């Protein structure tokens, strides 16, 4: 292989191996390379458009700040903090809320989903409850949780717990449903008890579905926490955005938006890495 070919494969604009010889590629998604070169270009072009737009004063900085202004705010807030909290504290406040809400949602949602998959009483009892609450956007509960718990930590955590709970219930239930009957039969024939079947067959077998649920729940939680902080909070990235908007400080608003985007992206990459590490058999059974 020539150096140029290697480079093309690295940049994701050409396939290697046998895929290169495929004549049918439209519709064969495995034959479509990831196009990394275009990703690099798109980020670059967007950056240039932003920079040039500001440099040529095409946009009023009140509507959209210059990259330099956002960077300056980043440096300043990293140094001195914003509204009584350092930048890291704001980020951590948001992360802490989703971690706690998400964890409690998993701790209650997964066993509940399992119970609904395994027991007639639990399935019947909780089915209408889950189906009713599931389609309600968690943000619709903000007024209620503020009345119950004020604007402190508890109201946000409660909201995020709610956001994660239904997703995890449904994921765990789907996981139980995905167990092949022959696996269950095999385990009983090998002398396993009900408890052993639960922990050694049903639980590991449903991990792929549970993990998919966790990824979805994490995404929803991150979106919900930012939105909740926009409404009522004293710290957090969402609070930063909201507070800055009251002073028309769009540079801080945009800084906050970029941080939200980057952290959301990072969380998903982390979850995917974890998934590949913990559930290597996913999709290979």
């Amino acid at each position: 292989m020539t150096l140029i070919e290697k480079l093309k494969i690295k940049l994701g604009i050409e396939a290697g191996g046998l895929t290169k010889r495929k004549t049918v590629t439209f519709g064969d998604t495995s034959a479509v390379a990831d196009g990394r070169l275009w990703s690099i270009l798109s980020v670059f072009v967007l950056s240039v458009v932003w920079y040039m737009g500001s440099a040529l004063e095409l946009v009023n900085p009140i509507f959209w700040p210059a990259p330099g202004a956002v960077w300056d705010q980043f440096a300043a807030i990293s140094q001195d903090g914003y509204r009584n909290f350092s930048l890291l504290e704001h980020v951590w406040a948001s992360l802490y809320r989703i971690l706690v809400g998400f964890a409690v949602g998993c701790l209650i949602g997964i066993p509940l989903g399992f119970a609904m998959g395994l027991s007639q009483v639990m399935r019947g009892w909780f089915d209408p409850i889950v189906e009713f609450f599931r389609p309600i956007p968690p943000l619709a509960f903000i007024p209620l949780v503020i009345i119950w718990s004020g604007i402190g930590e508890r109201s946000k955590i409660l909201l995020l717990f709610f956001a994660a709970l239904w997703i995890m219930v449904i994921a765990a239930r789907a996981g139980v449903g995905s167990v092949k009957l022959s696996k269950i039969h095999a385990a009983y024939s090998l002398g396993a008890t009900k408890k052993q079947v639960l922990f050694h067959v049903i639980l590991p077998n449903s991990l792929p579905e549970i993990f998919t649920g966790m990824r979805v729940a994490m995404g929803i939680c991150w979106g919900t926490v930012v939105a909740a902080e926009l409404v009522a909070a004293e710290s957090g990235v969402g609070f930063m955005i909201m507070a800055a908007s009251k002073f028309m400080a769009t540079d801080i608003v945009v800084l906050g938006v970029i941080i939200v985007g980057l952290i959301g992206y990072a969380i998903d990459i982390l979850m995917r890495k974890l998934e590949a590490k913990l559930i290597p058999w996913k999709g290979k059974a």
Partner: protein
Amino acid sequence: MSDLVVNDVSMVFETPSGEQVHALNDVSFSLKQGDLLSILGPSGCGKSTLLNIIAGFLAPTKGTVALASTELHGPGSDRGMVFQQGALFEWLTVAENIAFGPQMKGTPKEEIDATVNHLLETVGLQDFGDKPIYELSGGMQQRVALARCLANDPDVILMDEPLGALDALTREKMQSLVLKLWKETGKTIILITHSVEEALFLGEKLFVMAPRPGRIKKQYSLPFADAGLTQNPREIKASPEFIKTREEILTMIWEMEEEIMGLAATGTGG
């Protein structure tokens, strides 16, 4: 001795549309320890139902199944199962899959390790103990399934089309392995298959079952399994006697299938 006695077993159930299905009608037979029985029949003849009843996954509407004079209720480690495919635990390695039964029973680790190593060698997978299941070919996976079943030292091994998903060559090799394991372990084996050739080659006894109601239509005692231990399988399968029995059974099954189709076509099936 752990004889298996199936006595007067019937299975009748009602479909959601209210139709009565006689999946099995008064099926009786007994097997001595070390017998190898294969069961053939067109779809709907109740052979899977029968196997599930013996395994304890289904309770018959009438009749009993007893092993070593003890009536059976529910599944147990005295009857091992080998399924067609996909019954291995893909989150465990090959060795961990084989160790599953003894581990559930709380067998000491050294003992499990010894059993696992021995069985890995028996099924020819000594270098694959640490491999994940999903990296193995279909034939290798079925070797693991056999070993996992044997690790528990059951009295009876029930096989539900264990070689059905394998390619022809792998299948022949696996048939010889089944014979070898049968001879070495002296287990009672019941094998369900769709392949007449496989049923003839592996079955020391052979039942041909018929549908509506599910019953044993004809029983054979066959010499091929014993011969298969010493002679070349291909020669046995090409022998005039083998071919004659094969054609006889094929004709029988053909006729049953035709009858079912005929019934379905004239709308009198049911």
